């Protein structure tokens, strides 16, 4: 599965470059968890990860989206255009609610155990 993920990255050099500029990029793939942004939804809407996990959001919509922590629990993403990725690292256990401030009806949760 990891290999599949890496070959997917190779197909997206531009997206990978954007990703590399985001926080936590250098080690992001080791414990990488994925959230797809598709059809104006975070998928999965709730993701359970262990402490220290890196979570990468990928925008697969034609519309831009943005990942904003509801309580400033983690750093918000810049605007993600089609294909752009953003990674955040979750060091401490807790429930992190986030949403898209461009389309606030889009809400997701990261549960860190």
């Amino acid at each position: 599965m990891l290999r599949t993920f890496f070959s997917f990255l190779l197909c997206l050099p531009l997206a990978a470059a954007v990703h590399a500029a985001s926080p936590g990029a250098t080690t992001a793939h080791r414990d990488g968890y994925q959230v797809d942004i598709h059809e104006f939804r975070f998928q999965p809407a709730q993701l359970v990860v262990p402490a220290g996990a890196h979570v990468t959001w990928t925008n697969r919509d034609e519309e831009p989206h943005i990942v904003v922590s509801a309580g400033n629990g983690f750093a918000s993403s810049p605007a993600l255009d089609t294909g752009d990725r953003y990674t955040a690292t979750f060091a401490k256990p807790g429930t992190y609610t986030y949403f898209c401030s461009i389309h606030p009806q889009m809400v997701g949760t990261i549960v860190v155990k």
Partner: protein
Amino acid sequence: MNDDHRDDNTRTPSRRRFLECMAWAGAGALWMVQGGVAQARLLGAAGDGTPAPAASFGFVQISDSHLGFHKAPNPDPVRSLRETIARINALPQRPDFILHTGDLTHLSKPEEFDTVAELLKEAKTGQVFYVPGEHDVIGDNGKAFFARFGHGANGGGWYSFDHGGVHFVALINVLNLQPGGLGFLGADQLAWLKRDLAGLSDSTPIVLFAHMPMWSLYPAWGWGTQDAAEALALLKRFGSVTVLNGHVHQIQQQVEGQVTFYTARSTAYPQPPPGAAATPGPLQDLPAGDLRHAIGLREVRHVRGAQPIAVTDRALD
């Protein structure tokens, strides 16, 4: 007819020549067939044998230019905004001003703001008034937007002005949005609105403009403003309230008592009608040639009478 606002219309000859030159240069295919009229004119005296009253002044609403968007169905929103401006410049009566109801840009990038500002210099009008859309406030809560396009000294960016006997109110409903929420005005803005309206007589026509719809058009897609009812309660006593919004890239209309709500077309691309698609994203599979029927501008005229505000939407084709 705009004697009371002659200052707005004063230009130096060199400025006028420049604008005419720019209008000609930007016209392209735009000196074109008059667009279809998609909304009824609300001129009160029509059909009763008396002549319709002359408009005292007119203005134009444009919206959702999304500069920076580069996909189907409109990979070139610069061109469509330029064409829209040429249409404005070709109107028989020059609009006293233009309202841009937000989403000037797609991603709040400095170069996108630059392009909007440059293009709208081509418009032959007194002034352009702006409110931000959610695409204009990404990453900085609107700091870059307000630095360029803000009006007045209110901390929140909202403002009002009077023109030709009409009171115009610009509201901001795209900041401090909450997860799962809709557009949001907030207590500070509502308190300001109450003070702003306090001295006005009930017969003053009100035109209120903001980016997101001020009524519950389709909350599942975020098409509404969660505390709009509190603003509308403050407007209840007025005999004529016109609410002009953008955001949904299509003409929608709603009448609630003395309040008429309108959303405008985009100058860039249309979005699906409420619930007609899986998502509110751009209508990408428009048949070739249909884009120009689905984008354009709105002309608004003030007529002294019982129904003082008349709205006419014009597509590019």
